[in-house]
């Protein structure tokens, strides 16, 4: 294209440019690395020597005219004044520009944290259905029907589905996993569980548990203590102390209620721990031979431990949350804190 035609084209085209974006396209078209002017410049070396200087001059002139046109046009868009662009000044006091990330629910975060601790110790994760049979939820776990030991497990039974219920703990997965596999087993089971209850600051009718159990030829109470102490130190900090108190659960013998030194008062006694200096966080024990019998394990050959904890309780302690209902209100101001 001859340089005068190009000049005319430029002058006509700049009038059609109506936005900064279009102006940028325009600039690239003529002044860009592969733009029209660059193309012209690139043919200069091929010209006879006497013509080279002349065209060179013309091109440079057109270039400065073009730049002036672009600058003028820019002023039109910015209302006369030249806008301060990022290339000249960057006020780092301005908010950064980024895609905002969403958050995982705090319960999910706590579950994943605990899972990781156990998976790193060699445990595998299993899950099971929330609608369970009465057998897996009770009988298979040595909880007789019509017995006071069931009082701790109020249960949602289902209408029109006899002997079916919403699991009241994650322990049925123990029965399922043991029935489907032979030892050695080291398993954790996180999940939702259900117990009829009126909702208040410390009660819900749905919450989350993590169940864990290990079965092998030489599993002992001492090993249970070791595993749980490791867990507590990883989740609550190395300085945490742990104590085991005798307790009763139908599916373990011996059974223990496990407490950690209060993370608020460090064991001195405060309102969170009820002045005791200790916080109950989980139940545990050696798997009862009757449970082994139900799943066809030989309790002479194998021994095992099991433990279970409420995730909401752990999360409340960990984050200092005082009302359990907050977890399921899903207030974004709450969710975005984690």
């Amino acid at each position, binding site marked *: 294209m001859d340089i005068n035609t190009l000049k005319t084209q430029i002058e006509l085209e700049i009038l059609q440019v109506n936005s900064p974006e279009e102006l940028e396209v325009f600039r690239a078209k003529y002044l860009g690395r592969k733009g029209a002017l660059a193309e012209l410049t690139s043919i200069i070396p091929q010209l006879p020597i006497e013509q080279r200087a002349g065209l060179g001059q013309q091109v440079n002139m057109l270039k400065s005219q073009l730049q002036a046109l672009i600058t003028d046009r820019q002023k039109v868009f910015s209302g006369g004044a030249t806008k301060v662009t990022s290339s000249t000044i960057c006020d780092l006091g301005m908010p950064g*520009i980024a*895609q*905002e*990330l*969403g958050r*995982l*629910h705090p*319960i999910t975060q706590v579950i994943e944290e605990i899972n990781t601790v156990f998976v790193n*110790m*060699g*445990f*595998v994760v*299993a*899950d099971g259905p*929330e*609608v369970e049979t009465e057998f897996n939820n009770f009988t298979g776990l040595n909880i007789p029907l*019509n*017995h*006071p*030991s069931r*009082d701790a497990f109020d249960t*949602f039974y*289902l209408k*029109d589905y006899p002997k079916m219920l*919403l699991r009241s703990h994650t322990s049925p997965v123990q029965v399922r996993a043991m029935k489907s596999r032979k030892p*050695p087993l*080291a*398993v954790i089971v996180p999940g*939702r569980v*259900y117990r009829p209850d009126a*909702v208040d600051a410390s009660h819900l*009718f*749905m919450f989350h548990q993590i169940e864990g159990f*290990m079965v*092998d030829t*030489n*599993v002992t*109470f*001492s*090993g249970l*203590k*070791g595993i749980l*102490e490791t867990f507590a130190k990883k989740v609550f900090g190395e300085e945490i102390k742990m104590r*085991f*108190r*005798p*307790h*009763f659960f139908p599916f373990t*013998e*011996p*059974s*223990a209620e496990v407490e950690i030194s209060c993370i608020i008062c460090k064991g001195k006694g405060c309102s969170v721990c009820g002045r005791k200096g200790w916080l109950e966080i989980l139940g545990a024990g*050696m798997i009862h*031979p009757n449970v082994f019998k139900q799943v066809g394990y030989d309790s002479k050959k194998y*021994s095992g431990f099991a433990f279970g904890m409420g995730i909401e309780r752990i999360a409340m302690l960990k984050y200092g949350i005082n009302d359990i209902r907050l977890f399921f209100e*899903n*207030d*974004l*101001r709450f*969710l975005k804190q984690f």
Partner: protein
Amino acid sequence: MTVNLMKVTYNWLKDFVEIGLSPHALADKLTMAGLEVKTVEEKEGDFVFEIEITSNRPDWLSVVGIAREVAAITNKKFNANCLMLNVKNPQCKRLNLKQFNVNIESQKDCSFYSAKILRNVKVGQSPDWLKKRLELVGCRSVNNIVDITNYVLFEQAQPLHAFDLDKLSSGEIFVRRARKGEKLITIDAVEKNLNPEILVIADKNNPIAAAGVMGGKDTEVSWDTKNILLEAAVFNPAVVRLGRQILGLNSESSYRFERGVNAQAVEFCSMRAVKLMLDLSGAELVGDKSVGKISKKTKSIYFDCRCIQEKLGINVASAKIKTILTHLGFSLKAKDKNNMLIEIPGFRSDVNCAEDIVEEVARIYGYEKIHSSLPAVKPQAKFSSDRDLVLFVKNILTGLGLNEAITYSLIDRESLSLCSSTSAFAEVRDPLSKEQEILRPAIVPSLLRCVSYNLNQKQELVNIFEIAKVYFPSGASLDEELCLGIVLCGERNLLLEQGRLKDKMSLLHIKGVLETLASRLGVKEVAFAWQTKEIVDVFANGKKIGTIGCCAQQILEKLDIKHRDVFMLEVSLNKLFDCVELKKNFVTLPKFPAIARDISFVIKNNISVQEVLDAIKIAGKPLLESVEVTDYYQGSQIPAGSRGLTISCLYRLLERTLTEEEVSPVHARIAKLLIEKFEVTLR
């Protein structure tokens, strides 16, 4: 009554064991032995312990049971001398008991029933020491006779009941199931309807007590009572439990019967009460009739002391083991160095196997003395589970700016009307409240409530998701399906260098989330089809996996959401996961440059862009590498009912550089196709 809390006082315990510890030190010891002391309260010169008793230890529902424990923990002797019962019917002037009969309908319901007849009772106030002890453990004093039965209940965990003998219609007692239509006014003056599930004590005509639960008003001991019948019995725990559940009553008595009383001590306890009655009310024992059998047989467990090492992982000397067990009331017969036969006392119905003995030893030895060790966890195969995929999905969604919510899996009936489609659902039997009634068949209704809640908190953008099970009947069974629900509402403010932009949520945002997710999961094809005016079916690899849509106006009104659109997604993850392909295959990067050509045109709104793109893809073969929509506008320059689009076509050959001359005819062909088939106007 506070059910699982047992009150006992320091001085009462001292009747049976010497205590060298302060009340608080004793409380700590008890707690660490499995009797969790909740509170210690100093009261009237004594200390009241409130102890949580686990359901396996009915013997701890008595002062003697706890005293026995104190003896074992503190290495002292349990002393029952104060119970000296030199009343082996000393003054029992044998009544002609032919006049008096006890009839047990079923030995299963009641294995033993003892009736003691006492004459010339002087009903009056109890002495202060008795009143005080009862009141300290939370039992109101009534009169000397009733107080004595309660005193023995707390001391021995054996519930007793005293009837006014003269109020019985005849000299006969029947232990039988209630008949349909029978009624009983219990001592709390409430009339209860009875049915054959309930075991009662009856005279010839009427029920006079709900067995093991509560006595009747008509036959209760009053200030005028002269003669009494003292009942001591062994009722079937399950029958008592069912009875009190049906009657909606819970008494100290039923609480103990449900957990099981020590049958071997019933007669002893009955005589303990008689002795107190003789001493405190001037009564004379004139009759003693018992029916049923009490097995004298004791349980024995063969125990190998090495079991301790095996189960606990520590070594406890066999001498120590023996001391602990003896203190707890077990009788031991040594077989050899490690083995012994352990005879289980009648009050320890909970001890049935070697593991129970291990717990006894561990408890008293002290859990804190068991050192911890780390077991070797052997490698095992993973369980097949969607967990990893679910977490992957959650991370993708949070990466897209969505926040994870967790809502209840049970919903109220009203929430069902927030579902965009009606589906079958399952219900909870006898729900406690209407919020806990229905197993949800969809997640979105719960999320819509979260939208409403958050809008009320003045959130400008509500963008949340949840992954949870939903439930639906499928033939005779109830299926659970893992689902993903997403709702978007409001606008995202983007502060960019050119100023503020408002990114208003739309159905395309939902589509974008799903497409990104599907693409990350390697799902080959996602397609959409309008089902109704608001709802779009979503297909993955040709199979329907769920819906996306815009919340209908009448639903928004129910939620009180005004001037906002809410967009939602509900997709079965089980179905989506069937289409997942996480295997990646590297595609060689192109060596030669591509040529990009745009086409801008105006197209009628009723023509789907997807159809246009699909047609272009076919028309552009084989040079066309990709085609995408790069701009979109509607405005004054565009005729109504149409929109302006810019489509960018990328042409490339893998083996050499493509020339403009090769591209032009193809691009012209595409333009022609647009004009002819889709009636567009090029701009």
